[in-house]
């Protein structure tokens, strides 16, 4: 194999560079971040020849030292020394595109220029002389169309030839005589390496100390150069950086005059569209409509339906491919439920117990999935003994285990023994009499099993359990594979349909040019909080799911805004947090129709984001000059289906790869923590091991797990928040896998079995955790919920943040901040509630007041003046070497 030829693709944003890259490579390569920054890095091989490796540089306008995109590009060109550079130019925007070209030509690499979108230019009526441009730039120029794959091979071949000949472009002598003279003098002083003399001379002239650092120039040399620069500046009454920039554009004007014949300007299609889309009055309503549409499709309907389908069927109960048998199964299930067999069985057993009949083990024996001789014997004995028992007024329950009244409404009040408490005018729905023969019928009735119907496909966990069982795997292996691995990885895969749908839309909005308009329309609102106009999109998306929300921050062009938005956007309640909200609503007002409580949680999320953004803006990591919002509004165009599809595919694949590995590890870890421990229960062996398989194990084995131990060890952290019991801590930990786990873990920890957030006994159990001396501690409960809403999101979202940030330190900072902020807010809620409701004042009340004062200070103090860490452009060269 011959040596790899490295070719860099440079160009302005929106010049068609991504389309070119995709056409050349089919996107078979690596998508990641440049080291240390959240700027995307893409590398892939040429379809025609695997020895050619393309690196797609970020879309930039200049090689200035100010933005991370520009810095990684210029470092790549100068330090990594690619064999050749293809500079793609959008000819409909020739002047500004050539500005970057003049700088790329100076980087000391062989350059080939591609003139893209010539067809668009022709339809405008403009004429361009490519030969003349090639002559003026001193490098080969090829007219191409990235969209229609025209002349692309010729472009690459020219680049390969240029690379093999290795004749670096020397840049053009485009500056005025006095600047060229000064540059020549500087070149002599600095004696830069071969090929980069012009590059470094100009960088010294601009006083770009970061770029010239590799030269390690002595103070004497810098002072000498400084004299040369100062002389030119004095003569021109302008600073060196401005002189260089202006003269580049002046030279480009001469190119334009020589090579381009412009047709008289008329209103372009883009301008016509923008007359409506960014209209003073219509701009905002149109933006809101687009957002609602994105939300509606990705979150409310298609995306969620697809994700729910995957979660409920593929990873849940299985599904039917045969519509008729599905209907049959559903009808059978419904008629089975209408018979209330479960209520009859439990009511009859209770009545028998009242009549003094031994009922031990009967309920379990009846419910046993595979009856044994033993269980049959128990049932038989019971049936004989209770032959004359008649149960009266057996209450009816719904699928959540709640009592119903005669109107089919859920009864939301229970007494201490779990019996229904009726309101005035309410009547309990009951089955009048259950006789022994009713019991026999109910006990022998089996719920319809979907496996008995044709066309039923089992879910992955059920199928795998089946295979492993028949292969003779141990219960521990089955549990690890099914609950740990499939459960954890399934939570990632379940998001894929939603992410896919979301990116189909976001990529379209991005590729067609609308995203820039979003920033234009919304900038005013978000600038106040130190966020970008585009931060709105991730937040909307996060109300459905934080994972695509964090991924949607990609469209924010500024790195600081991007990081801040990725950190904060998960504070908006996602759909997995809704069961927690439902649970609290149930406890507080018994499921009554208080519609304003749920929106309160969204307001809390929005307030948390705004407060955090204002506070963080004034801290060191987010310090600095306001980011310039000087942005191109590119022409609208319909993205090619191919590059649209690739765009979506790249995003989804990157998510699965990066987020998947983290979630996999985390899920296995949590599985281990909650299934292993010391069998310390009554009748237990007291040995350490896999709890569900140990002797005498009960439903509550989690109480003895390592997780419980970790929960109690950490519970002191939460004592000031009012919920310092290990159950609350342990369920907060297991909620990290998926927030909806909070509710199911409660069910397990309190032995409530399959109770859901809509079950009245779950409300009672949840309230019981926060009941002190018989009274519900609302402050502690609200603090608990606030903490779980605001603290670290689920592992899937954390993995996504890790992927998006591209840095372990930033990820740790983000997660740490979220947890600390959630803790502080929960502390406020609990302490101030206790102060007002109970009048209790203690150490933690003082801590809460101090933290509140600190928060208010940070919110309202003026922007601190941080010491300028390092000047990228020195005011005087000699001073930069201290």
């Amino acid at each position: 194999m011959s040596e790899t030829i490295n070719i860099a693709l440079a160009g302005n944003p929106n010049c068609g560079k991504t389309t070119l890259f995709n056409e050349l490579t089919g996107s078979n390569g690596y998508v990641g971040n440049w080291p240390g920054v959240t700027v995307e890095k893409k590398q892939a091989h040429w379809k025609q020849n695997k020895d050619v490796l393309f690196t797609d540089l970020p879309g930039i306008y200049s090689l200035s030292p100010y933005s991370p995109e520009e810095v990684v590009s210029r470092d790549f060109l100068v330090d990594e020394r690619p064999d050749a550079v293809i500079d793609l130019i959008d000819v409909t925007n020739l002047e500004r595109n050539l500005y970057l070209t003049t700088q790329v030509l100076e980087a000391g690499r062989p350059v080939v220029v591609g003139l893209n979108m010539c067809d668009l230019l022709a339809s405008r009526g403009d004429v361009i002389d490519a030969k003349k441009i090639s002559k003026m730039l001193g490098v080969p120029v090829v007219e191409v169309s990235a969209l229609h794959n025209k002349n692309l091979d010729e472009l690459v071949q020219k680049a390969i030839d240029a690379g093999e000949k290795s004749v670096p472009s020397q840049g053009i002598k485009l500056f005025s005589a006095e600047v060229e003279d000064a540059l020549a003098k500087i070149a002599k002083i600095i004696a830069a390496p071969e090929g980069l003399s012009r590059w470094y001379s100009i960088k010294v002239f601009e006083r770009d100390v970061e770029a010239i650092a590799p030269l390690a120039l002595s103070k004497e040399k810098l002072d000498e150069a400084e004299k040369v620069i100062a002389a030119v500046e004095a003569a021109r009454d302008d600073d060196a950086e401005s002189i260089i920039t202006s003269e580049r554009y002046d030279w480009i004007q001469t190119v334009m005059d020589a090579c381009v014949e412009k047709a008289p300007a008329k209103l372009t299609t883009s301008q016509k569209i923008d007359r409506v889309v960014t209209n003073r009055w219509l701009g905002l309503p149109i933006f809101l409509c687009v957002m609602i549409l994105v939300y509606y499709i990705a979150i409310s309907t298609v995306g969620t339906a697809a994700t729910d389908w995957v979660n409920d069927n593929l990873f849940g109960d299985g599904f039917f491919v045969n519509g008729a048998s599905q209907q049959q199964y559903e009808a059978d299930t419904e008629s089975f439920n209408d018979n209330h067999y479960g209520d009859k069985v439990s009511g009859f057993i209770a009545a028998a117990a009242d009549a003094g009949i031994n009922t031990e083990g009967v309920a379990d024996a009846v419910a046993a999935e595979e009856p044994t001789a033993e269980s049959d014997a128990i049932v038989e004995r019971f049936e004989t003994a209770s032959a004359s028992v008649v149960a009266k007024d057996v209450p009816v329950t719904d699928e959540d285990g709640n009592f119903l009244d005669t109107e089919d409404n859920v009864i939301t009040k229970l007494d201490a023994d779990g019996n229904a408490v009726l309101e005035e005018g309410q009547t309990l729905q009951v089955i009048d009499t259950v006789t022994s023969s009713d019991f026999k019928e109910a006990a022998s009735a089996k719920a319809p099993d979907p496996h008995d119907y044709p066309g039923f496909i089992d879910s992955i966990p059920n199928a795998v359990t089946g295979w492993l069982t028949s292969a003779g795997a141990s219960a521990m292996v089955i549990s690890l594979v099914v609950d740990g691995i499939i459960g954890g990885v399934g939570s990632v895969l379940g998001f894929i349909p939603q992410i896919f749908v979301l990116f189909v839309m976001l990529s379209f909005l991005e590729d067609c040019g609308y995203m820039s308009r979003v920033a234009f329309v919304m900038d005013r609102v978000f600038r106040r909080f130190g966020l970008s106009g585009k931060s709105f999109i991730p937040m909307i998306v996060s109300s459905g799911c934080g994972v695509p929300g964090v991924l949607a921050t990609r469209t924010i062009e500024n790195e600081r805004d991007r990081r801040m938005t990725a950190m904060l956007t998960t504070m908006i309640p996602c759909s997995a947090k809704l069961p927690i909200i439902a649970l609290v609503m149930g406890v507080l007002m018994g499921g009554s129709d208080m519609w304003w409580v749920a929106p309160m949680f969204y307001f809390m999320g929005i307030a948390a984001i705004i407060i955090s953004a204002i506070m963080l803006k004034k801290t060191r990591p987010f310090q600095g000059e306001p980011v310039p919002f000087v942005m191109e509004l590119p022409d609208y165009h319909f993205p090619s289906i191919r590059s649209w599809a690739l765009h979506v595919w790249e995003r989804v694949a990157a998510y699965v790869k990066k987020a998947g590995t983290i979630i996999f590890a985390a899920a296995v870890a949590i599985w281990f923590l909650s299934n292993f421990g010391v069998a310390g229960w009554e009748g237990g062996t007291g040995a350490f091991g896999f709890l569900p398989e140990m002797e005498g194990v009960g439903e509550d084995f989690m109480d003895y797990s390592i997780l419980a131990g970790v929960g109690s060890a950490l519970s002191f952290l939460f004592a000031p928040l009012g919920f310092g019991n290990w159950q609350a801590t342990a369920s907060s930990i297991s909620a990290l896998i998926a927030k909806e786990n909070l509710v199911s873990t409660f069910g397990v920890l309190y032995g409530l079995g399959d109770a859901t957030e809509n079950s009245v006994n779950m409300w009672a159990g949840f309230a019981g955790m926060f009941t002190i001396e018989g009274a519900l501690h609302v402050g502690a409960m609200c603090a608990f919920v606030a903490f779980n809403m605001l603290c670290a999101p689920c592992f899937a979202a954390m993995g996504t943040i890790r992927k998006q940030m591209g840095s372990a330190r930033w990820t740790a900072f983000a997660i740490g901040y979220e947890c600390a902020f959630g803790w502080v807010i929960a502390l406020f809620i609990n302490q101030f509630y206790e102060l007002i409701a109970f009048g209790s004042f203690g150490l933690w009340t003082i801590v809460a007041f101090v933290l509140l004062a600190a928060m208010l200070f940070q919110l309202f103090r003026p922007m601190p003046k941080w010491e300028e860490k390092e000047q990228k452009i020195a005011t005087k060269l000699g001073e930069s070497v201290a």
Partner: protein
Amino acid sequence: MASLRDVKVGQSCTVAKLTGEGPIKRRIMDMGLTKGTSVLVHKVAPLGDPIEVTVRGYELTLRKDEASCVEVTGIAGA
């Protein structure tokens, strides 16, 4: 001297000088607003800021604060 901020929608002008320094000034110049360039103020965003201008044949948007760094002459038009 008038700045780009003061130019009304529909008016055009010529860039005379750039004040300010650092990233904002460099960025404005990188985008083609250099001395002698003619600029047409095209529209104002729905909430009054930023503004949209046509420069060197393309649409550029910048905030009013940034526009005030651009000193202009020869304001003309509607």
